């Protein structure tokens, strides 16, 4: 038998009792290191289109008692083929994008301030960004505001030299309010506005000429609800988007996180999406096949990009997570399907092939 300091031994012994929050309390602020791997493949009937594989390394570490540093690096390898117009004439593509983000956050009792920078480069596209963000909470921590500014400066030099040294500058502003409604409910309202000027055209499409200004506004509503009976949490979100191309989009997302014994949890997800077409979108005219549909005579702006058409989409996903000690792993699988007739409250764009994507992501995180 031995007599030791009870502070160390008793508390250490007590931490192996099933007292979750006590464990969290006793831990100092941790850093995290995480490695993610994404595999994305999209397709249309009879043809695979783009495949992206993307390993990503990210790190967050506390610095002193009031600061933290975050950094991440991702390498996207893009291969496959993309349509030259509508969903026709698949043209092979091959590229690699490397992106790095760095940010520093300062914490005070009721507020945080973040400054960050980003850089990403592909063979034909370089993007540089600067962002500032702040949060402010009330004393009871039940209400918090957040504010963000993001500046992007992009340089575009397409391999086909359709344009040389084009630029795009974007300013994004965001303002949000998060409110704890009860011990089981949390709600959030986020407003976003973005002003962009410069080259928005896709240089690899046959008929594509877009305005040199694109502004958009977003409204996001979120509601998280804890369900006592099952111990799970539902997350519901609605997002409204409108832009100066005349696209109006609605997104509804429903997720349910079910914790399971031994550190497992399962999260099914369903997302429904619908958008109207850009005002200068040119519908696919089957009479002009096998040639691309000509834009209307005298039109100054036109596009045959599938993403600017009118369509609806559904995403079904599931995430399986496991936590053990300082480690956690998440495996996420998603199936995305886009069809023109799935647009809500209106007819979708005509004569486009349905579009599908499958996304698998594995993430491994360690706290230290």
């Amino acid at each position: 038998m031995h007599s030791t300091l009870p502070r160390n031994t008793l508390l250490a012994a007590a931490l192996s009792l099933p007292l979750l929050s006590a464990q969290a309390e006793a831990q100092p602020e941790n850093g995290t290191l995480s490695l993610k791997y994404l595999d994305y493949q999209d397709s249309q009937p009879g043809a695979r289109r783009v495949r992206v594989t993307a390993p990503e390394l990210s790190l967050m570490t506390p610095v002193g008692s009031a600061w933290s540093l975050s950094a991440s690096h991702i390498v996207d390898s893009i291969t496959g083929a993309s349509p030259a117009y509508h969903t026709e004439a698949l043209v092979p593509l091959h590229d690699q994008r490397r992106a790095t983000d760095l940010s520093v956050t300062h914490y005070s009792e009721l507020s945080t301030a973040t400054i960050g920078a980003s850089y990403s480069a592909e063979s034909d596209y370089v993007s540089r960004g600067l962002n500032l963000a702040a949060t402010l909470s009330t004393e009871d921590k039940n209400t918090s505001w957040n504010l963000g500014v993001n500046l992007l400066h992009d340089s575009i030099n397409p391999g086909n030299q359709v344009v040389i040294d084009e630029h795009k500058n974007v300013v994004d502003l965001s303002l949000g309010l998060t409110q704890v409604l009860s011990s089981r409910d949390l709600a959030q309202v986020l407003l976003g506005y973005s002003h962009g000027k410069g080259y928005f055209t896709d240089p690899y499409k046959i008929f594509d000429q877009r305005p040199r200004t694109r502004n958009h506004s977003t409204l996001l509503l979120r509601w998280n609800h804890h369900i006592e009976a099952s111990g799970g949490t539902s997350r519901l979100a609605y997002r409204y988007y409108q832009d100066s191309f005349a696209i109006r989009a609605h997104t509804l997302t429903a997720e349910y996180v079910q914790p399971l014994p031994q550190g497992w949890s399962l999260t099914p997800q369903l997302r429904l999406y619908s958008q109207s077409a850009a005002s200068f979108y040119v519908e696919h005219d089957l009479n002009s096949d096998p040639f691309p549909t000509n834009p209307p005579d005298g039109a100054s702006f036109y596009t045959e990009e599938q993403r600017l058409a009118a369509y609806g989409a559904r995403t079904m996903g599931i995430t399986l997570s496991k936590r053990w000690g300082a480690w956690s792993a998440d495996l996420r699988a998603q199936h995305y399907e886009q069809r023109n007739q799935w647009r809500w409250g209106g007819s979708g764009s005509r004569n486009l092939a349905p579009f599908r994507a499958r996304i698998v992501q594995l993430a491994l995180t360690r706290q230290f």
Partner: protein
Amino acid sequence: MEVFRIPFSAMASQCEVVLAAPDLASARALAGAASAEVLRIEHKYSRYRADSMVSRINAAAGAAAVVCDEETLALLQYADELYRSSDGLFDLSSGVLRRVWDFRLGRLPDPAALAECLNAIGWSRVQREADRIALPQAGMQLDFGGFGKEYAADRAADILRQQGLQHGYVNLAGDIRVLGPHPAGRPWQIGIQDPRQRDRLVASIPVTHGALTTSGDYERYFERDGQRYCHILDPRDGQPVRYWRSVTVLAPLAIVAGGVSTIAMLKQQAGLDYLEASGYSYLAIDQQGQIQHKICHA
């Protein structure tokens, strides 16, 4: 957010949950989840229920090993740590002394019966292997009463925390676990009872986080020929401790605070050095009513 005080009865005593909630209905729902957890632990570890974990272990004494679930194994492991860090004074098997000490009738034990009882005490003889526990001798008993209430306070607080509660505390008959400060940011003022005058406080301690527990000679006792016999019994001779009237400890968890305060009571005069070495804040009142205290800033 408003502060609600929701009382409930459990473990044969008056308990309460004090918490900040938007309305009475949500305060009641939260307190209900917390009190349900306290009752679950009471049922699982009660000596008075034949189907409890403890009754099953005790019934198999001298006969068989009993398979335990993870929660029970973790508590037994913690009991082992209490035994070792108290040099054997905190002994889960010493509850058997209740057979010879009757605090309601105020009777001194018969020396022969007491000697027989002492033979049935000995945590070091309890066999624990993998997920099984066996009491080696018929008549041996385990009693989780020494830390069950504190564990329940921690678990109830944990249930509340899982529901997102940040402001409030759980009070199980004076064993208090605080989740977070008053919604206005100020600490809760927790009163420490005078061990000799039921309605008087000797001190009031501000607490924002952690747990405050008190072990005292005034909870169950009887007096005979001017001598107080309290329910905290030394497992070596089966006699009540006499040095401290009460010991209060502030620690991160109720189960730790409770362990330290009870061990200090059991160590009697040496309890003061033990409290000093613990590094936790304490307030101890000796038999002359002298207060010894130390505030540690963790």
